[in-house]
């Protein structure tokens, strides 16, 4: 599950999950939902990415920005995100998607970057993992 939350100039993204991994994956979906209509993406092709940082929060920042970089570099858009390994603030992940086509995917607003603003990874009262940040659009 994911949601978007309010910020004066930009948008907040938040993902929920049973594990940190799942909350990261959901946050990636939240971010993609700003760019395009998620339902229009067919997960035809898989690419692998890695990210590492000095803390779990900074790892979320690196992970989300790596996805944005891959969108430009590969010319793709992704709908499925799977973190295959997460240890010592390093991760490996698989992104599934297809070539980005503005008409097919109903492109909306570009995200310039995930930021440190309201960057948090924590467990809520329901023992769910929550990860979030503000993205610059």
């Amino acid at each position, binding site marked *: 599950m994911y949601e*978007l*939350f*309010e*910020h*004066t*100039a*930009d*948008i907040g993204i938040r993902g929920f999950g049973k594990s940190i991994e799942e909350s990261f994956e959901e946050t990636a979906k939240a971010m993609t939902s700003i*760019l*395009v209509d998620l339902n229009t993406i067919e997960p035809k092709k898989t690419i692998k990415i890695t990210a590492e*940082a*000095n803390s779990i929060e*900074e790892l979320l*920042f*690196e992970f989300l*920005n790596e996805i*944005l*970089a891959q969108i*430009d*570099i590969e*010319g793709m*858009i992704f709908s499925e995100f799977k973190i295959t390994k997460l240890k010592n603030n390093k991760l490996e992940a698989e992104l599934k998607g297809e070539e*980005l*086509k*503005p008409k097919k*995917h*109903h*492109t*909306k*607003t*570009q995200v*310039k*970057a995930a*930021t*440190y*603003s309201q960057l948090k990874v924590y467990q809520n009262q329901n023992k769910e993992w929550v990860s979030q940040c*503000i993205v*610059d*659009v």
Partner: protein
Amino acid sequence: MDVAQLNKISEYEWEIKQTGKMNVPGRIFASQALVEEMGDKVKEQIQNVAQLPGIQKSAMAMPDAHWGYGFPIGGVAAFDPEEEGVICMGGVGYDISCGVRTLKTNLTLEEIQPYLKPLADELFKTVPAGLGVHGKIKLDEKQLDEVLLNGAEWVIEKGYGLEEDLEYTEEKGKMEGADPTKVSYKAKKRQFKEVGTLGSGNHYLEVQYIDEIYNEKIAKMYGLEKNQIVISLHCGSRALGHQIGVDYTKTLTEASQKYNLNLPDKELAAAPINSPEGQDYFAAMKAGVNTALANRQVIGHLARTAFEKIIPNSEVKMFYDISHNTCKEEEHIIGNKKKKLFVHRKGATRAFGPGRKELPKAYMQAGQPVLIGGTMGTSSFILAGTEEGTEKTFGSACHGAGRGMSRKQAKKQFYGENIISNLKQQHKIIVKAHSAAGVAEEAPGAYKNVEEVVNSVHYAGLAKKIIRLKPVINIKG
């Protein structure tokens, strides 16, 4: 923000008292109504910026200020390298050198009428805009390094513009000291197909007419008159700039720990100017600036070719190009002493008064043109920098209307299709957009009143109102 917490200096100037760890006070330049509209986060961010080492005079906010990343958007601060001053990623942001370019034409509002529809179609076709749309220029790493080093100069050599365009571009189209080796390969790879693209969000290209002249003398010096058609475009350094921001957030966060800067907010991500990390960021940021200047040069030229194709005998000349997310090394007088300062303008435009060596010769007496973008349905403005502003704010003014409403709220309240048809019926503005949702986010009602923002700049003495522009065509990403 509650004005009772501030010291009122004048109707348009407010002080945040120096307390706690602040090295200088804060200053807000705005009418009382605009200060009251600003969230408390703006005050908190100004107080944070005021704590940075080597800061001079005060941490400042322009009248369009709102909550940003480390710095408020609309934040200005200058640092002295001789006093352990810092260079701060939060003072530049993720869209390095985002800015506005305005070109002037030999056409009047009346003359352009028969061509409006085909012109809008041609501009929409010619100027690559929106998410996932690539530019006509495809570069390899070696060619892109040329853009990073030589900015607008390089794209003009490749046929995208005229030599004379450079005279009317800030930094003459090229910031010296850019170093492509300080920019990651990932940042470059993201940019191979992006040069000459508008992007999305609040980026646009508008055809506008001069609707009102407030200062005939300076308007004449600028070569502008009533009803004249101009073209304005707003965009930045695209994915390359975003990735430099991301890469150096990490580098400068680590540096701030290494040099024990004790930042009040992690997002300020800073390093001493005289440190290898600080110098690396400065050289990379300059490469980002050059990329933005090249980008706006290409788009401006594409607009020029569209005009020439659709309207016989039309002439399009550069008026000015200015960035509003930058850090620049500039000379300023502090007390009686001339100092070299690193001036950060985050969502704030440089606004130098007459006589500064950075100005084009033609504008030396008038002062620097300050280009203020409005919203789709309202007005944009051209102001002129003043000596008073150069002294008060290191020569800085606002950059736009400034958002008053979140994008999510705007999408709840407005529908893109309705806005487009209202603008057409009520204001005769043709809007051509790649995304209807994007139009809703950028609805005129989601912004502060641009007239109020510009009046605050004028009456605070930061820059003089010269001209008001109204849109006739708006191309949105």
